[in-house]
């Protein structure tokens, strides 16, 4: 077992935020979220944080660990500190703070709705194995015909928005996850999304910092997808000009 210090940002109601520190005994194989849950269970019942699935499929537990956006349920303590070390945990940036580590992801969910991000989609639309970004060439199909359906890679966790330098300065910017959701659908099959993608808040607002791709916990690679979406937008514009 390790003895480590959690330094956690606290904020209730309208009060100013501050850090509280907790000394915790943890198994270094445990995850950052386990330690936070332990602090809540045994040290301070007033601590609030978001969590649900504990294995990176729901996207609820995004926080900043030592300044970097992480899904805390799959971030092992041994990978972000050492025995006797300190872990600093902050809420995600670029969202309103509700309480302590809890932020309101409502703005992201509304943008995902605006771009019609599909809650489930055919298996052939995104990769389903390994690290590749492009859809697989061959996928199994049901004996009775049709296509198998899957949940998308994007967890709607807000981590990409928190890391995005443009989202920090412009709350109206659609941001990485919603733009990636347009790219996955494709403007070819969804011309109704062109206006949003090509708008002031769309692809041209991105500064290509690629912070989103660096922190995305679910291999969506929004930075690459935004660049690809620019290509799609340009192609459609050219088509309009040429006729």
């Amino acid at each position: 077992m390790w003895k480590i210090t959690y330094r956690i940002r606290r904020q209730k109601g309208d009060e100013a935020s501050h850090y509280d520190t907790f000394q915790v005994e943890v198994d270094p194989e445990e995850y950052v979220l386990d330690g936070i849950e332990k602090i809540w269970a045994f040290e301070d019942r007033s601590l609030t944080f978001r969590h649900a699935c504990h294995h990176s499929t729901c996207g609820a537990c995004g926080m900043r660990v030592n300044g970097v956006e992480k899904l805390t349920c799959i971030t092992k303590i041994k990978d972000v500190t050492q025995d006797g070390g300190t872990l600093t945990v902050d809420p995600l940036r670029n969202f309103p703070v509700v309480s302590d580590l809890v932020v309101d992801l409502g703005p992201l969910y509304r943008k995902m709705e605006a771009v019609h991000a599909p809650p489930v989609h055919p298996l052939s639309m995104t990769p389903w194995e390994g690290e590749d970004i492009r859809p697989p060439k061959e996928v199994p199909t049901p004996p009775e015909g049709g296509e198998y359906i899957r949940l998308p890679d994007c967890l709607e966790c807000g981590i990409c928005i928190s890391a995005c330098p443009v989202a920090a300065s412009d709350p109206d910017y659609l941001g990485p996850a919603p733009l990636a959701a347009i790219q996955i659908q494709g403007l070819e099959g969804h011309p109704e999304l062109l206006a949003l993608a090509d708008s002031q808040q769309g692809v041209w607002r991105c500064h290509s910092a690629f912070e989103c791709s660096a922190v995305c916990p679910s291999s969506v690679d929004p930075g690459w997808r935004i660049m690809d979406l620019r290509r799609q937008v340009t192609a459609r514009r050219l088509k309009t000009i040429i006729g």
Partner: protein
Amino acid sequence: MSKPHAIVIGAGFTGTAIAHDLALRGFDVTVVERGPIASGTSGRTHGLLHSGGRYAVKDQESAIECIEENVILRKIVPEVIEPNGGLFVAITEDDLAYKETFIKGCEDCGIPVDEITPQEALRLEPNLNPKLLAALIVPDGTFDPLRLALSFAATAKKNGAVFHLFTEVVDMLLDGQGNVTGVKVWDRTNNTRYDIHSDIVVNATGAWVGQITKMAHAHVPISPTPGIMVAYDRRLVNRAINRLNRPSDGDIVLPQRRLAVVGTTSFSIDDVDYVPIDRQQVELMLQRGAELIPAIRQAKERGVYMATRPLIGASGPGRSISRTFKAYDHKDLDNVDGLVTITGGKATTCRAMAEKTVDIVCGKLGLNIPCTTAEVPLASYRAFYD
């Protein structure tokens, strides 16, 4: 007459489904939840939309509940479900010997079951153990745990239910006779405490029901029984893969987005709020999971977690306790009026659990309003944040 007011404690699958059902039946609904949505057992569930196959031999009551609800959930909340079916796969001669018993059990419970050849099974799931001896298709599915609860909650909210998250029940409000008339809560987001009065309180806290009934000097017999699950970083299967045999440890592999999740185990605990991980069980999941899907050994462990089932009954070996559910009117059980407790069950049966519970609530208040949740499509999970 003004609307009756119900307080629901707990916003897991059961609590959110109850809030939705109550709202549809015309109640004023207040949900209090000490954490965020689905932060207890519900969020950490394996994510198997049961066909009932798993229970078709030994626990047919649960199996029938599962197949009925499986069909309903596919219809009312398709956007959180991968409806790709499931396979029961025989690897050993012992598995194969179980096949006829299994098929008979499924037929008894009305669960459609089809045998396919090992070659066809390998076409559908190339990562299956190539040594498989038999494969049966059943209508299993998989679902996203948080979004299932959010969909029920979003629909309840649209119909007027009010959710107080991060708000913990610290005591019951009792009248002179010891009957429940509401709850005392602590809102942890702003550190305030206040009372909420109601006509009825529904305790939907799953493995934690005992903490609530204790405050009302009532009780329910449950055995909190955790199980471990391990997520690996490759989507190695596209449907539920079950071992064709009696339910045992690590005999189910499921897809979740780009992951494969192996589960689970079954053991007893004392403290429900914090259950540490036993690495031996993690090893067991790898070993058992790889018997079904050998490529798991080439994948990387991504997350290890634990969920605590609220099984009904006094302590006993977890696998032998039925997975069915039960709603209790504490007037009958402890002579405490105003409190109903629901526990047991499976994620797959949460809508039926809500229906049964709200039937009891309506009966207690002398109301005769039919349940319509089997027909009403749920709102988008994203609408919860509106």
